[in-house]
């Protein structure tokens, strides 16, 4: 932990002419430019939203307002955890920062899982990227937002790993951090495969414990994924234990705050998409 807890002014930097830390200024400038990027995508979708798929499904009938509302709620709660992570890092509380970042990662992954399920469901019903202008603009807009979320999750994972950097032995930490990152990647991919198998089994045989267990045991890829998930989670648990003094504290709060700004921006973009793309279709 930082030895200077509570002594840094996180809203004012005397070393810059603007009084704003350069990293924060850069992030706000980037987010301002990203606003224009998303505005163009959203406008394009609104213009072409009345171009339906010939012989394809009616968007109003295939959109699931329950799933989208759940995704919105999940993203809002991830924003809360992110705000708490920033607050904890500004006080030099490393353990609390780690827990909040882990929670944000989990919620971000749930959101991505919902989006993957939604996309696969729509494609199955005939709405593809090339089936109509509606499909093209819909997937481009929501897919670009999904990519932003995915980048945010990777950034969160890297920051989480960064919190373990020891005050000494930096070389050994690099190897350890690579192992930790690979374990994260394996855990995420394997749980996605498992969830997909469970969803398919549930759709075919009904959502019961026996059908879920059957799906996880009979398919070879799913069985391997289950084993990989168990091993990677155990590895993450072992690597995630606190080991002595770390080179992470209040001075690193600006890095967490920059990441937080990006994550909240992803959330506000979804607030707009949820209203303009999903809710307006029901009118």
């Amino acid at each position, binding site marked *: 932990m930082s030895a200077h807890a509570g002594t840094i002014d996180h809203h004012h930097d005397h070393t810059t002419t603007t*009084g*704003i830390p350069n990293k924060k200024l850069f992030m*706000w400038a980037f987010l301002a430019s990203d606003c*224009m990027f998303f505005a163009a995508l959203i406008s394009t979708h609104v*213009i072409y939203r009345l171009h339906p798929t010939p012989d394809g499904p009616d968007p109003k009938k295939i959109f699931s307002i329950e799933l989208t509302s759940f995704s919105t709620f999940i993203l809002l709660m991830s924003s809360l955890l992110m705000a708490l992570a920033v607050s904890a890092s500004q006080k030099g509380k490393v353990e609390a920062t780690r827990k909040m970042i882990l929670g944000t990662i989990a919620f971000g992954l749930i959101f991505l899982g919902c989006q993957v399920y939604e996309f696969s469901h729509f494609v199955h019903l005939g709405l593809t990227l090339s089936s109509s202008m509606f499909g093209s603009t819909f997937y481009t807009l929501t897919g670009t937002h999904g990519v932003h979320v995915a980048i945010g999750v990777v950034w969160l994972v890297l920051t989480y790993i960064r919190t373990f950097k020891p005050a000494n032995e930096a070389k050994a930490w690099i190897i350890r951090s690579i192992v930790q990152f690979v374990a994260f990647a394996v855990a995420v991919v394997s749980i996605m495969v498992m969830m997909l198998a469970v969803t398919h089994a549930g759709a075919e045989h009904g959502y019961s414990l026996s059908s879920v267990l059957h799906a996880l045991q009979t398919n070879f890829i799913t069985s391997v994924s289950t084993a990989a998930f168990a091993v990677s989670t155990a590895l993450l648990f072992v690597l995630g234990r606190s080991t002595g003094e770390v080179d992470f504290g209040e001075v690193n709060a600006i890095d967490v705050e920059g990441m937080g700004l990006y994550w909240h921006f992803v*959330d506000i973009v979804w*607030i707009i998409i949820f209203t303009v793309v999903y809710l307006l279709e029901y009118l």
Partner: protein
Amino acid sequence: MSSAVPLTHTASSSDQAHADEGKFHLFVQIAMLLGVITGVEIIIVYLPLAKWLVVTALSVLSLVKFLYVIFYFMHLKFDKLFCTILFFIGLVLAGGTATALLAIFSSKDSIPETAKVIYAERATASVTK
């Protein structure tokens, strides 16, 4: 005199603890409020109200959510004014671009002839049901 230092220190630690707790509660309350607004948005869509009223209500509620996130979760309220100005430059340009695009290319004007047939068929099907 020697006892004054620990007392002051204790008082400032207590103030800090109260401030931390206050911020935690503020964030949680805002998150709950945002959740409730999302629920209200969904209910509004299903209410038998005029389309312009629903669109206006949804726009206002989304704007409220948007402003809460940027001013509290993104700390614009506590940061220097320049951050707000910088972000709003991008936001105004984005809003202007979107408004101009929607004014030039209205969604109803750009419906292709084939789509008009599809909409007519869907309308007929819904009437017969």
